[in-house]
């Protein structure tokens, strides 16, 4: 077996920042938003990660909402892409067999119209349910905020 202190050190010393789940989980990807067009609307697309330790079915995504430059976009206004399939985040309550895997980005289209290059203050709220915690559907409320520029999509 290829085991050695040198190989172990190689794995342990990789310089990647970690964070404590459910407390500091980053949701917004640290990269520019992209200009995008969806269902006849201009806007931006940005990528997000799930803030859990395991994949969740879309029926457990209770709410997503964004604030970009002071303007609020509720779930009904957004389009959520999981693996290139489009969903309205306000209409996923029945989707028990569509999964968001823990290592995958989802993409959110926000109908902002034409935004300038920025940077813009972007705030996200994500409410998810862990579908087994003892007393019933237990909702975790996550939030994240970043200053993001807009690049051509």
């Amino acid at each position, binding site marked *: 077996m290829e085991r050695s202190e040198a190989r172990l050190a190689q794995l342990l010393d990789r310089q990647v920042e970690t964070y404590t789940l459910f407390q500091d989980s980053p949701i917004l990807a640290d990269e520019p938003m992209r200009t995008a067009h969806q269902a006849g609307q201009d806007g931006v697309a940005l990528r997000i990660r799930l803030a859990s330790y*395991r994949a969740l079915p879309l029926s457990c995504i209770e709410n997503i909402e964004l604030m970009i430059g002071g303007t609020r976009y509720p779930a009904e206004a957004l389009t959520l892409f999981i693996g290139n399939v489009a969903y309205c985040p306000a209409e996923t309550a029945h989707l028990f067999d569509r999964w968001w895997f823990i290592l995958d980005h989802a993409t959110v289209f926000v109908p902002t119209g034409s935004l300038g290059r920025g940077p813009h203050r972007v705030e996200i709220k994500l409410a998810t349910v862990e579908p087994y915690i003892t007393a019933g559907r237990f909702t975790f409320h996550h939030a994240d905020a970043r200053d993001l520029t807009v690049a051509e999509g």
Partner: protein
Amino acid sequence: MTPEQNLPFGLGVALHSFTAEYVALKWSFEDLIELTGYLGGGVEITGPAHHRGYPHVTIEFERTFKSAVERFGVTPTCYGSYADPFTLPARNRTPDELFEFIGPQLEGAARLGFPVVRLQFFSHVVAERLLPIAERLNLKMGYELHAPLTFESSTVQMLMEQIERLGSPHLGLIPDCGIFASSVSDGHLDRARGAGVPDAVIQQALQLWSEGIELAQALETLRASGLSEQQVAPVEMFWGSFGRSDPANLVTHKDKIIHMHGKFFTMVDGEEPNLRYRDIVGALVASGYDGWLSSEYEGGASVNSFNACREQQSMIRSYAAGSK
């Protein structure tokens, strides 16, 4: 079981321990398998965390997993299934839906080479229906006894009665060491303070916890003392992480125990300050337990999870040597 010196049972890691590094993409899934080779060699995975396609095992994942197990010389010990009863907002999963959800997880676990599957206790309503599948696949299913459950709780008494009634070697128990606690961790107390819970309410919560008052009743008392709804979650975690079960149950019920979850939250000077590991290991040695124990780290990301597991396993080995 690995031929460890002084250790009658095998040690390994639940890959859940490495969650912080895994989700931050410091370590790939295969890196996690590789790391278990340095930590006793037993590998335990969690379905929805570790493979796309869950609850089904894809042929790609089967190849990846088996190749990593072979390459790094480790042993699959337990597959973490879920019942996920509260998946839909409108209603809970029906027994038929539980059966349809858990069945494929048993099939997948067997294909991957796991001898044991962790069941969440909600699965009990379909355990009898799942037994023929477990028998065909030569799998053992075990109810995880996780806080707030304890051996002494009515739910677990019910599970044990079912196990006795069904009388099958394919159904047993997987105690999580978090149920054998002597105290609640400082980390949990800090999170409650951080959520604004007043010190007096925290002290009252700890008093109720130490008296063995069950969660529902304790929350009633604490709400009356002014615990607000936003503050319930961090206080609930005192009961959700730490139980007051007696490790002697590991001897009394040894015939039902098919696997062990070595839950731990923090190591201080080579010991886990809140969990009764000396008593746990003593009981496992006394009972002749010869299965696997998966280290399961659930502390914060400020500590390297590999080093935490290594320290915990040293502690377990030294307690085992000391209890002979």
